[in-house]
Structure formats: C-alpha cells, structure tokens
C-alpha cells in the first residue's frame, strides 16, 4: 500500500511538472452551428500564431503554448458557457481566444471569464453592447464594434445618393446591434428606412421576409447577415422574385462563396468590411498559405492577432498567467515601440526580453482603445464583373 501511494504521489509530481511547462490557451469558436464554415480558418490562424511563438524559441523559458479548442456553437449561450467552464476549471487555460459570436461571447465573459479572472480576446464579436459590458478589464477584441460600421455603411449609402432603403438583419446580438447603429446613423444623415425585418439563420425559406420587404419598397436592400446563412438566403430570394436588384451588405456578407454562388447577379451591389491594407495583411496571407490554409476568409486575421497578443502580453508580464495577459495586452498592442508584423513574433519576443517596447501591428493594424477595442478601418467595396473591387477605405 505504501509503495502504491508513493508511486502515485511520484506520478502526480511528474504530471505536475509536465503541465507546468504547458501554458494552455483556450480557443473557443463555433465549430458547430451557424458559422461552422468560418471557424476552421479562424482556429487555424490562432494556432498558427501560437506555434510561431513556440517555434521561435524566444518565449518564456521552458514554457510551451498549447491551444485547447472548445465549441461555442455561436448561438447556444449555455453550451458555450459550459465549454468555457470546462476549459478554465479542468484544462486550466490562462487566457481565451474567443468567443466568436457576440451573444455567446457576452455569456462566456460574464459567467466564466470575469468570475475566474481569465482574460479573453474575441476576434469577431462585434456587437456594440459588448463595449458597455462589466468586464473588470478582462475583455478585449481585435474586431471593431459595429457601432462604427453602422455609421460607415450609412455614409456609403448617402454618398451614393440612396435615400430610401429596406433593412434585414440576422436575428441575434450581432445583427440587432448592427441594425440599430445603422438605423440611427442613416436617419441622422436624412435617409428613410421603409421596413426593418429580421431573419433567422439556418432556415431555407425566406419568402415571407422578402414578401414583406418588397411591399415596403426601397431603392436598396441592406443585408446585415451572414454570407453562408440567412443573409445569402435573403439575397437569393430577393433576386428570384425580382424584389431587389441591388444590395448593401455588412461585414458578415463578405465572402468568396457568395460571389461564386451569385456572381454576376449581384453586380453593382456594395458593402463594407473591416479591412487591413498594407504589409501586415500581406505578411499574414503569405504565412497562412505557407501553413496550408487561406487567409481570405472572414476574421482569420483578427484571430491570428488575438492569439499573438495573448502570447506577447504573457512575455511582457514575464510570466504565463492570466493576470499578465490582462495587464499587458494594451501595452503590447499600442504605440510606442517597434512595429511588429505577422511572422515577426520571434523578433517581438526578443525585444521584450531585452526590455524594449513593441507596438503590435499584426494583420489588422491593431490599435486598441482604452476599453480594449480595435478602432478598425473599413473597406468600401463594390461588386463588378463578379468580383469585389475596392472603392475606398474608411
């Protein structure tokens, strides 16, 4: 018996020693559910940043970052909370890269992150409501709030002299928040909204919604939804019935799949999407294609940046702990310091180790405001000849 106890104590010690070298980072994304087609790319991007840090050999001595995936489902707050709870209490993750959809992100933040003091950086939760959430300084996001995008989209419409629109949004925190900010901004600029009608994702039939919107009329249909979900269904139904020819689209609608499916039918439509131009984005595209996945999907860049920020903040705090991440994210993300692009994480780690300052630019030109949110720049694009073409950046 004594021997057995000793043996188990020894093995406990041994496992303890192993886990001490692993710093676990939670990757909570909707691997099933409405955005399951976007999340593999997002997770791969985040894990790419972590493995880049590990491979550089310049991270905190003897510590390896290990991603732990969990399913947020995008829509089921209870399931997301349970998954996050498991990550934090069982796997002992120090920080969370996620969650993705705004609703589940709010739930994970208030039920798991805040009570346990675990910081989270969301790459894609864009609901304006999250800005005011009680977060004890633990919540950051690399995707800009939709409060800003609503204004951008409203300006675009006014610039194009479109004075009357119908609006449809996906019926969740993201869509509702986006629609509210768009309506306010558009009305202020003198536009008229004939009808605002939500749509549910994952349904196949949208004739009721399109029927109502067509009756209400409007020059353009503003679609604030997802490109592989209800948003596409609404556009398809509008085209099929001839209700609308031109669409103004929010960021969730930007995807190559939409063009591949609808292509020439939506020529002349336009929209806005958070966009990073320049070196950072290009560097990331190169990294991604080398790693064997495409960067041209939504929120891959933001995911990479979120994971990179977690690692850099740990380095800055000189320990792999939740507190180090929470305290140092803003410091490493913002000026002053040496600008850091994707692929230069090793260099960044060395600078920090030598006591220098860095300004993480990353793939999306990261600049986090006081509340820990990206300001973001947007690309105003138009669809011509079945391809996205840039009109301007806002």
């Amino acid at each position, binding site marked *: 018996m004594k021997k057995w106890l000793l043996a188990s104590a020894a093995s406990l010690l041994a496992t303890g020693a192993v886990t001490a070298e692993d710093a676990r980072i939670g990757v909570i994304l909707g691997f099933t559910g409405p955005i*399951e087609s976007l999340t593999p790319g997002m997770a791969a991007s985040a894990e790419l940043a972590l493995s880049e840090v590990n491979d550089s050999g310049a991270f905190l001595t003897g510590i390896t970052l290990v991603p732990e995936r969990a399913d947020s489902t995008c829509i089921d707050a209870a399931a997301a909370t349970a998954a996050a709870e498991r990550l934090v209490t069982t796997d002992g993750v120090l920080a969370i890269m996620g969650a993705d959809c705004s609703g589940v992100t709010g739930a994970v933040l208030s039920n798991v992150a805040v009570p346990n003091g675990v910081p989270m950086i969301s790459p894609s939760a864009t609901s304006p409501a999250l800005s005011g959430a009680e977060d004890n300084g633990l919540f950051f996001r690399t995707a800009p709030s939709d409060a800003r995008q609503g204004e951008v989209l409203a300006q675009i419409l006014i610039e194009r002299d479109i004075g009357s629109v119908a609006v449809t949004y996906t019926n969740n925190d993201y869509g509702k928040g986006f629609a509210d900010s768009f309506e306010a901004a558009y009305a202020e600029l003198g536009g008229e909204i004939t009808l605002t009608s939500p749509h549910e994702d994952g349904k196949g039939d949208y004739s009721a919604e399109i029927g109502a919107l067509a*009756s209400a009329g409007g020059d353009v249909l503003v679609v604030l939804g997802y490109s592989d979900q209800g948003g596409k269904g609404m556009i398809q139904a509008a085209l099929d019935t001839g209700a609308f020819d031109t669409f103004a689209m929010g960021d969730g609608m930007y995807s190559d799949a939409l063009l591949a499916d609808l292509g020439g039918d939506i020529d002349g439509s336009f929209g806005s999407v958070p966009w990073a131009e320049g070196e950072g984005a290009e560097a990331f595209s190169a990294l991604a294609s080398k790693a064997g996945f495409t960067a041209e999907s939504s929120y891959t860049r933001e995911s990479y940046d979120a994971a990179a920020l977690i690692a850099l903040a740990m380095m800055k705090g000189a320990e792999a702990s939740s507190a180090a991440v929470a305290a140092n994210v803003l410091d490493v993300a913002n000026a002053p310091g040496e600008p850091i692009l994707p692929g230069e994480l090793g260099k960044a780690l060395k600078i920090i180790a030598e006591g220098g300052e860095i300004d993480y630019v990353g793939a999306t030109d990261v600049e986090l405001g006081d509340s820990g949110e990206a300001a973001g720049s947007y690309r105003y694009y138009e669809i011509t000849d079945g391809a996205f073409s840039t009109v301007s950046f806002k």
Partner: protein
Amino acid sequence: MDLLNALVALANFVLIPALAYGSQLALGALGVTLIYAVLRFSNFAHGDTMAIGTMVTILATWALQSLGVSLGPLPTALLAIPFGIAGAAVLLLLTDRVVYRFYRAQKAKPVILVIVSMGVMFIYNGMTRFIIGPDDQSFADGERFLISARDFKAWSGLDEGLALKSTQAITVVTAIIVVAIVFWFLTHTRTGKSMRAYSDNEDLALLSGISPETVVRVTWIIVAALAVVAGTLYGLDKSYKPFTYFQLLLPIFASAIVGGIGSPVGAIAGGFVIAFSEVLFTYAWKKVLGYLLPETLQPDGLVQLLSTDYKFAVSFVILIIVLLFRPTGLFRGKSV
C-alpha cells in the same frame, strides 16, 4: 390592369414560394408520419436522414457531371436521386438492424425510441459533416428560371414581375408524382395493404400472417425514398447545408402533427397549412392593396398583420389550436 398587377404580386411573393415550400414540407412530413404509423415513434433523425441522403445524391451528381452526363435544361441531380435513395435505404436498414430492432424486440415505450432516434440523429449529423463538410454545397445546374421577373415584365407590360424558378416547378410536379405513387402503393398493393393493417392493429396483423420484419423493411425503404426526394428538391430550390436540414425538423413535425400524425393525407395538408400560414400572416399587403383600392383609400402603413419575426410563432399557434380542439389533427391521425 391594376387587378392583374395585384394578382401577379400576390402570386410572386406568396402563392408560388409557399406552394414550393409546402410541397417540400409535405414530403418530409409524409416520411415522419409513415414511421409514426408503422413503427410507432417520432423519428427525430428524419431531418438528418434527408441531409445524408441528399449528400449521396450530391456526390452522385458531381460524379455524373464529371462524366459529362446532363439532362439539358433539367438539373442533373434528378438522375442522381436513385443513388441517394439507395444510399439512404441501406443506411436506414442498417440502423434499424443495429439499433431500432433491439428496442422493438424489447417492446420499448415510444418515448424511449424517440430518445434513441435523437441519438441516431446526432450520429447522422456527424457523418454528414464528416463526409461532405458543414459548408454550403451548390449542385444545381440546368435552367434556373422558367419565367424570370424581368422577362415577365417586358412580356406583359405590367409593373409587377412574376418569377417561376424551374426548381419550384420541378418541386411541385415531383411532389405530386411521388405522393401519387405512395398512395397507390398503400392502397393497391399487397405490401401496402399489409403495412396499413400492421399500422391499424399490430396483433391482428401478425395473426393474419403478415411478416412484421418485411413491413418494417418496406417502410424504411419508402421513408428513405421520401426523405431523399424531399431533401434533394429542397437543396435544389434553396441550397444544401447540413445545418438547414437539422432546422427543418421543426416545421416538418409541425406539419405532420397539424395534419394528424400517422395520416398520410394529413401530412400533405399539414405541410401546405404550415407553409401558407407562415407567408400569409406576415405578408405586408400594402402593395397589393395599393393596386386594388382607389387612390383615396390607399394605406400609408404596411398593412402587415404580424411582423415576420412571428413567422414561426404562427405555425406553433396553429399547432396549439389544433391540438386543443382536435388532438388527433385535421385528418384524424393517432392521438399524440
């Protein structure tokens, strides 16, 4: 002229879409109702049976397309449907052999079978995603429109366009043919009659020498055919995404229950009731009334009975009313 405009607008936004959607729901509900009638449980795996069968159809379609086979203006997928049916039938029979037969032998309560079917649902769900992935797949080819809104306007000179997609027409026609075959089978063939007998009274059917295993097998094969046809039509008309089929389960069950679960006629009626109520109650009548009423009476508002947010509430209110006043459904199915 105004009257025509009003009619065309109504047909374009209400009648045609609801008719196509109703046909798809009806085929789905027919499958659910047959299982309920013969095997006596609500099969929650039906939505994912549709997804997995359609997946086989899509794979076969792609194979045919790469071989250069095409039906001209019709979608190639119609040729691939038999492969899908065969695939789904094998899968369902295998599931029955491995899973359901065990519980049947135990004379398990229907509620246990319902839970079992949920387990099967998740397994099918995973298999579909594993094989074809969670993404949208497009497999429709051939002519997209019989009549497009723009051509119709130019041809008729009306202000309103009327669009009729070829997939909508195919959906309705195929649904009619399939339903006719199923009914003929149930009423005119020996196997069909034995299925009905088995459904009415299991013990009596067994006494008169009907082989229960044959009845069960035939039922699964018919259900596989219905599921694949419904799933493929739905995928052609809208788009194929595994998640959508999972969501489709709700309106399908609503249709089956409203019509009277266990009653084939009821399933079809239920499908159309649900589809039309979803569209009719939330339609904004402004446009149609604008054409019909004299200028002075024209409405300023949208004349919308309910916002489209309540689309799903409408089907469930109908469901509750039917269950309260006619628990066996419109066509006297089994009580649930």
